[in-house]
């Protein structure tokens, strides 16, 4: 997979190295600004409020939160 990507890129060694470095940076940026913030609310360790949704049989109260 990554080997194929490496062979696909043209030019002397330094060019693909630079391109892949930029690609990795873009991937990390996308993760930090979009992907991780999107999945974070679904993680089980971010709740701080008391409310019915986090337990069974309690009365409804407020939103579920981090």
């Amino acid at each position, binding site marked *: 997979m990554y080997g194929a990507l490496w062979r696909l890129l043209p030019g002397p060694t330094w060019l693909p190295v630079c391109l892949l470095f930029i690609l990795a940076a873009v991937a990390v940026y996308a993760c*930090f600004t979009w992907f991780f913030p999107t999945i974070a609310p679904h993680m089980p360790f971010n709740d701080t409020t008391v409310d019915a949704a986090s337990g069974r049989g309690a009365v409804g109260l407020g939103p579920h939160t981090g």
Partner: protein
Amino acid sequence: MRAARSKRGRMSAIVGVAGELMITAGVLLGLYVVWQLWWTDVEARAVAEEAVQEWTASDDVVQAPSQLGQERTDPPPIPDAVEHGELLGTMHIPRFGPGYQVPIAHGTSPVGVLDQGHIGHYEQTQLPGEVGNFATAAHRQSYGAPYREIEQIVHGDELIVETADAYIVYEVVGDEIVHPSQVEVIAPVPGHPGQVPEKRMITLTTCHPLYSAAQRWITYGEFAYWVDKADGKPAALVDEGGA
């Protein structure tokens, strides 16, 4: 011979790709941990600090002179109700060190309040200074973690809510660890839903234990006195200088 080799070649290609996918997944998980435990703090603290500065500089907010104000025990002025996500004021907790000042916004949604490093006000509970319970929530870890050190707070510590025109000072009277479904902790009389309140209480709620959400840490405070911002500041904030 050739068929066997090409078969092995295809197998090794599949295994190779699977391995690379797993390595990628591992790197992504590692990056998520870095983002959650470090970057959310960086971002949320910056947002919260800016919110405090903006609020402090706004025209409706009185600038208190840096001198000791008179401690008053008559009913404190109640701040105006605000929309979800807007600031009611800021919180000072001297136990967390000088300069601790975190914005308190109306509402407890992650997006727009808690994940911005703010303390959230449970919408159905009373306002600061009102008879009843001014109940708040904030992150224990990540996103600026305003309540990270909540276990350090001891009985008698001051929790100071700064509104537009007053410092409303509560004194810590107790804490407990509860199940997340125990909503009675934010009732007007904490722990006794349905009772008619007579005291002015504050409740802080956050995750417990640290890095988990299995339980909730609850700290209770009771109104002690208030200081008119036109007059000065509470003793704990005079030494801090600045804001």
